[in-house]
C-alpha cells in the first residue's frame, strides 16, 4: 500500500507564488510512476447517411510506447462526401462529391506522474486546409485518485472557394482562420465504484467563419410568397465556453452505467445543453453498449430563416447549425473479443460494431423547397410558412482493434 507523501514547506516567504504552487502541487506526486496507454492498432470504417448526405471512409490509429516512458501515435482519417443536402438543393446547385484527408501525429513523454503530450493534425480538402498543433500536460495526484489535465491548441485554416459550375478553385478567394483552444480537466475517483470527470474548454476563432457557398434568404421584393438568396455574412470572431461533467458507475454485478452533461455558450448568442446516459454490459466474450443522447440549442443572434429584406442587418446567417433545434441519438454497440489469451505478438483483439440513429428537429429552419415549387402545385407553401425541416441520420462504425 502506498503511503501518503510528506511535503517540505519552503522556509522563506521569498519563494515566488508560482514556484510555491508548483512545488507543493507537483513535487509530492513525482515520486511514483504513472502509466502510458497500451500499444494498440485500430482500423475503422465509418459511414454516415442522412439529410441527402453520405460520408464514409476509413480511420486507422496506431500507438506504440518505448521504454515505458515515450509513446508515439499516428492516425489517418478520410471522409468521402456525396452531398445533395437541403442547402445544396435550395441553392440550385447539383449533387457534389469531395474528399477530406486528415493526418495526425502525436508524442507523449511520461516523467514520474506527469505526462506531456504534443500533437499535430493536418486536414486537406480541395477548398479547405487546416493545421492544428496541440500541447497537453496530465498530472496524477493524491494516490492517483485525481488526474489534472491541461491543454492548448493552435489552429490555422485556409478557406478557398470552388466555382460550382466549372469546379475550379477561385484564385482570388483565400481567407484565413486562426483558432486557439484552452482546456482544463479533472478526473476524480470518488468511491470504489464511481469515477467522475469535469472538463472546461474555451475556444476562440478569428477569420472567415462562414461557409463561402451558403446563402441566407430574404423575402423576394417583387413577390412576397417567394424568397431570394444572398451570401451569408458572419462576424469575424467567435469565442465559446463549454463545461462538461461526466460520471461512470460500476454496478453491483459486472456492468457499468454512465451519464454526462455539457453546458455551452458562445459570443454569437448560442446556448446549448447536452445530456447523455448509457449502459455497458459484458457477456462472455461480448460487450454490449446502449446509450441515449439529447442535445438542444437556441439560435445565434444573427440567424434568421427568412430575413425581411436584403442586408437587413450587418450579420446574416441561415446555417441550420446556428438555428434553434434539438437532436436525439440512440446508440447501440457490440464488441467481440477474439484471441483473449493472445496469439503470437497479439495480446488480444476486438471486433466492434456501433450503430447510432440521430434525429434532428429544427424549430426555426423551414423546408424552403416547398416555396420553390410552382404556385399551382398543391404542395406549394409561401416563403416563411413552409413546414419545419427535420431529418434522421444513420451512423455506422465497424472496426477491429488489436493490442500488441
Amino acid at each position, binding site marked *: 500500500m*502506498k503511503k*501518503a507523501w510528506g*511535503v517540505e514547506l519552503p522556509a522563506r*516567504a521569498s519563494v515566488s507564488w508560482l514556484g*510555491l504552487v508548483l512545488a*507543493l*502541487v507537483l513535487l509530492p506526486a513525482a515520486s511514483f510512476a504513472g502509466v502510458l496507454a497500451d500499444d494498440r492498432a*485500430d482500423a*475503422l470504417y465509418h459511414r454516415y447517411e442522412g439529410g441527402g448526405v453520405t460520408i464514409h471512409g476509413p*480511420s*486507422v*490509429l496506431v500507438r506504440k510506447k518505448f521504454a515505458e516512458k515515450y509513446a508515439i501515435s499516428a492516425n489517418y482519417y478520410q*471522409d468521402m462526401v456525396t452531398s445533395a443536402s437541403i442547402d445544396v438543393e435550395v441553392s440550385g446547385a447539383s449533387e457534389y462529391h469531395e474528399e*477530406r484527408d*486528415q493526418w495526425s501525429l502525436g508524442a507523449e513523454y511520461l516523467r514520474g506522474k506527469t505526462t506531456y503530450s504534443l*500533437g499535430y*493534425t493536418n*486536414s486537406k*480538402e480541395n*477548398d*479547405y486546409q*487546416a*493545421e*492544428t498543433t*496541440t500541447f497537453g500536460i496530465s498530472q496524477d495526484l*493524491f*494516490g*492517483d*485518485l485525481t488526474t489534472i489535465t491541461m*491543454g492548448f491548441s493552435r489552429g490555422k485554416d485556409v*478557406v478557398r472557394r470552388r466555382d460550382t459550375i466549372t469546379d475550379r478553385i477561385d484564385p482570388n478567394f483565400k481567407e484565413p482562420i486562426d483558432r486557439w*483552444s484552452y*482546456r482544463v480537466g479533472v*478526473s476524480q*475517483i470518488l468511491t*470504489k*465504484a464511481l*469515477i467522475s470527470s469535469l*472538463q*472546461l474548454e474555451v*475556444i476562440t476563432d478569428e477569420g472567415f467563419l462562414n461557409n463561402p457557398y451558403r446563402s441566407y434568404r430574404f423575402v423576394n421584393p417583387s413577390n412576397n410568397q417567394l424568397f431570394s438568396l444572398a451570401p451569408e455574412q458572419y462576424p469575424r470572431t467567435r469565442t*465559446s465556453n*463549454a*463545461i462538461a461533467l461526466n460520471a461512470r458507475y*460500476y454496478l453491483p454485478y*459486472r456492468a*457499468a452505467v454512465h451519464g454526462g452533461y455539457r453546458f*455551452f455558450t*458562445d459570443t*454569437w448568442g*448560442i446556448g*446549448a445543453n447536452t445530456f447523455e446516459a448509457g449502459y455497458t454490459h459484458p457477456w462472455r466474450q461480448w460487450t454490449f453498449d446502449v446509450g441515449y443522447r439529447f*442535445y438542444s*440549442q437556441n439560435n*445565434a443572434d444573427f440567424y434568421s430563416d427568412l430575413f425581411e429584406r436584403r442586408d437587413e442587418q450587418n450579420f446574416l446567417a441561415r446555417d441550420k*447549425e446556428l438555428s434553434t433545434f434539438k*437532436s436525439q441519438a440512440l446508440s447501440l454497440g457490440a464488441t467481440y473479443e477474439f484471441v483473449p489469451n493472445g496469439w503470437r505478438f497479439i495480446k488480444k483483439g476486438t471486433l466492434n460494431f*456501433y450503430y447510432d440513429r440521430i434525429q434532428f428537429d429544427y424549430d426555426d429552419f423551414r423546408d424552403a423547397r416547398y416555396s420553390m415549387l410552382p404556385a399551382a402545385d398543391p404542395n406549394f407553401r409561401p416563403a416563411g410558412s413552409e413546414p419545419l425541416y427535420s431529418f434522421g441520420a444513420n451512423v455506422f462504425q465497424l*472496426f477491429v*482493434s488489436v493490442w500488441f
Partner: protein
Amino acid sequence: MQVRTGILLAAAVVLAGCGNIEPWVKPYERQALADPIMSFDPNPVSTAYIDHVFDAREGARGANGTAGGGCGCN
C-alpha cells in the same frame, strides 16, 4: 507585505494538507475501476469519429476530452 506573507502561508498550509490526503480508495480496492468497461474512452478512434459527427452538425463544441481540429465540414 504582511498580507502577502499571510496569504502565502495560508496557501502553503492548505496545499500541504492536500499533500497529506490519505487516498480513501486504496490501490487494492480499485479492481472495479480498473475494469475496461469503466474506461471513459475505451476506443479513442471511435470517440474521435462520433464527436466529429456531432461537432459538424451542432453549434456547440469543446469539453469532450479531445483536442479537436479544424475542417471545412461546417
